[in-house]
Every structure is written in C-alpha cells, then in structure tokens.
C-alpha cells in the first residue's frame, strides 16, 4: 500500500471517529440540556399555579359577637382592627363602623388603577 493510500485510509478512520464522537457529544449534551431544563420548566409551572391561586385570593368581612372579623381563604381569619393588619395574604383594617379597606392579591395592581 502506497503512503498516499495509507493516508487516505487513516483519514477515513479519523472522520468516522470524529462523527461518532460528535454524535456522542450531541447526545450527552441533549440529555444534559433536558436534565438542566426540567427544574426550570417545573418552576415555570409552579409559578403559574401560584399566580393562579393568588389571582383568586380574596377576603370577606362580617360582624360577630366579638366585633368585626375578616376571613380569608383556607380558614384563615382575624379580628379587624382600626390599624392595617394581615389576614392571610390580605392587608385590611376597619375604616368606619360599616366599612373595611383591604388589599388582596386578587386586587388589580396600582398601575392599572
């Protein structure tokens, strides 16, 4: 076999190995990318779920024998004071005898007012 033929054969071998390695790296990189992406994708879903639950978060008010009461979701409730206080994730206080002022996650943002 002439040196030229031998070089050609070697080049073909190197090309094959090169292709195999490239494919291997691509497969490994793809698997790694998916593994890296999954927590990010999951966090996106979690954030959407949280946003959805927050957009429905409300508070209600009533009088009881012991005074005005605010009740939020998941059984959270607290007496209504004349200074702002927290009821679940809402901020509320008693403005006058029959009115409460509150701000909840379901309220519109200020910049949309």
């Amino acid at each position, binding site marked *: 076999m002439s040196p030229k033929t031998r070089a050609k054969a070697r080049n073909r071998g190197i090309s094959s190995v090169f292709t195999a390695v490239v494919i291997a790296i691509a497969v490994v990189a793809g698997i790694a990318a998916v593994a890296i992406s999954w927590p990010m994708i999951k966090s996106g879903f979690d954030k959407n779920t949280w946003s959805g639950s927050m957009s429905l978060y409300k508070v209600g008010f009533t009088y009881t024998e012991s005074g005005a009461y605010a009740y939020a979701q998941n059984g959270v409730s607290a007496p209504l004071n004349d200074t702002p206080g*927290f009821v679940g994730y809402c901020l509320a206080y008693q403005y006058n005898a029959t009115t409460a002022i509150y701000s909840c996650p379901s309220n*519109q943002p200020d910049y949309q007012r």
Partner: protein
Amino acid sequence: MSQILEELMTEPIGFIIAMVILIAGAVGGLYGYWAYANHVTLQNYLWPIAEVVPYKGEYFLAVINTGYEPFIVKQIYLSNGSTINVNTKPLTHNQWFTETTNQLPIAVRVCSAVEPSVCTVAPVHGWSMAVIKPPQHAVLAVVIDSCTFNLTKLNITKTEEDLVLQAFHYSTHCNCTAIHNNLTTCTCPWRLVWYGWSGGSVCYGGNLTFLIQPTHGEVRFIKHALEGPNEAKPNTIVVFNADCTYWLHRLENLTKLPQTLLQQYALWGQLYSGSSYPLLECPS
C-alpha cells in the same frame, strides 16, 4: 497556510484539537445554559405579594413572602417615579415587611437572599372598600334595662330579656345606623341594641327619639309594641318618637300580652345575645 490547515484537518493532532474545541464548546454551552436555568428557576420561586392601603393620609405598604425561597426587599417604586431603597433582612415563608410612604407605591423589587443577583419586580395591588356585613339574622331591638316601675296598676321588676319591646328585623345585606338625639332625663333607661352582632348599642336615659337610617338594604320592622312604619328603605330616615309615658303605657299593655308572647320576646333576647341560630326568618 492552506497546507498547515490541511495538516490539521487530516492528521491526528487536528482531530485532537477539533475534539478539544468541540468538548469545550459543549461544556461551555451547557454551563452557560445551566447558569441561566438556575437563574430563571430561582427567579420563578421568588413569590412576593405586595399590598397597599391608604392610612391616615399616607400609604401603608406590606410585602409578604408567600413562597419558601427567602428574599430581600431592595427597592420600592413610587408613582412619582422615585424609588426608596430599603434593603430589608431576609423574609422567609409568610414573613411580612411593612413601610409607610407618602406617595403611592406601584411596585417593589425583591432579590433572592441566597443569590442577590436574582431579582424580580412585583406589582403592588391596590385597595378596595367593602361593607362589613352583619349576620343575616341580627336584630335591632329597643330594650329596657332592669328597673322598677312604680305605677298604680303595675309594680314590676323586669330583666332585660323580658322587656324587648321592639325588634327590627335585619334582613340579608342590610346595613343601618341608629342615631339618637333630643335626649332628656327620665327615670326609665332605654337602650337601642343589636342582638346577633356587635353593631353597638345606643343608650338612652329619657324621652326617646331615634332614627333608623339604612345605608344598605332594607330594614323591616317587627311590629308589636311600637307604632310606626313597617320598613325603612335605603337613603331614607325613619324617625320614631316616644316618651317614657308612652313606653310605660306600652309596657303595661305588654304585661297583658299572652305569656307565650312574653316568652317569645324573652327568647329573642336570649337567642340574639348568645347563639347566632336564627329564630326569625328573613322576609322573602
């Protein structure tokens, strides 16, 4: 030059260099993507909620961490374009930060306590006003406190429960205020009092004029001892005028009522002083 390139492309050294470049590129790319994914993941788990209410001429702002990723409140953005740097201590799950501002806050910037370069901006939710609804079956009543009445025909000592003279049926979504005026001294103490909720009571020491002014909904009166209108509608004022003589006269008549009715009045008093179980049904 092209010969060197040819050499690099075809000889083993060229293969090794190509592999190194390829692997370095892949590792570098993956690392960059990993760093980006970490950043986004951490950012997605920053769950601040910001609320504001007007209070005493200022704005009362509160920021709560509803998630489990601790964060620091860095800045408050105000409606006039200015910002307030706050830099709080880390807020963990369900911890609040409050601040009073003289301008309307519109957003807050929070950064992860673990990785301060990861930040997010949360809008501040505006406020609403709500009517505090009384219980559906609350009753407003005129009562006489325990006292002794010395009349020629009548000498009795009664307790409050026995002397619920008049009850105003407080229907669903009804909200009214009672105002008293023109009080004069009298030996017979009267009170206008709510049963079933803490709507407060108005005390009277004499001749009585009281106004029922519904602010929301309709108040229906249960007519027994008191002569007057049947109901009061929103934005109207109903005035009842009475004096002690009148009421004592009514009281005298009241004692002549069947015992069952007296017991009924007493029962109202007991029920609406304690249990919230509705004895009276709402008007349909």
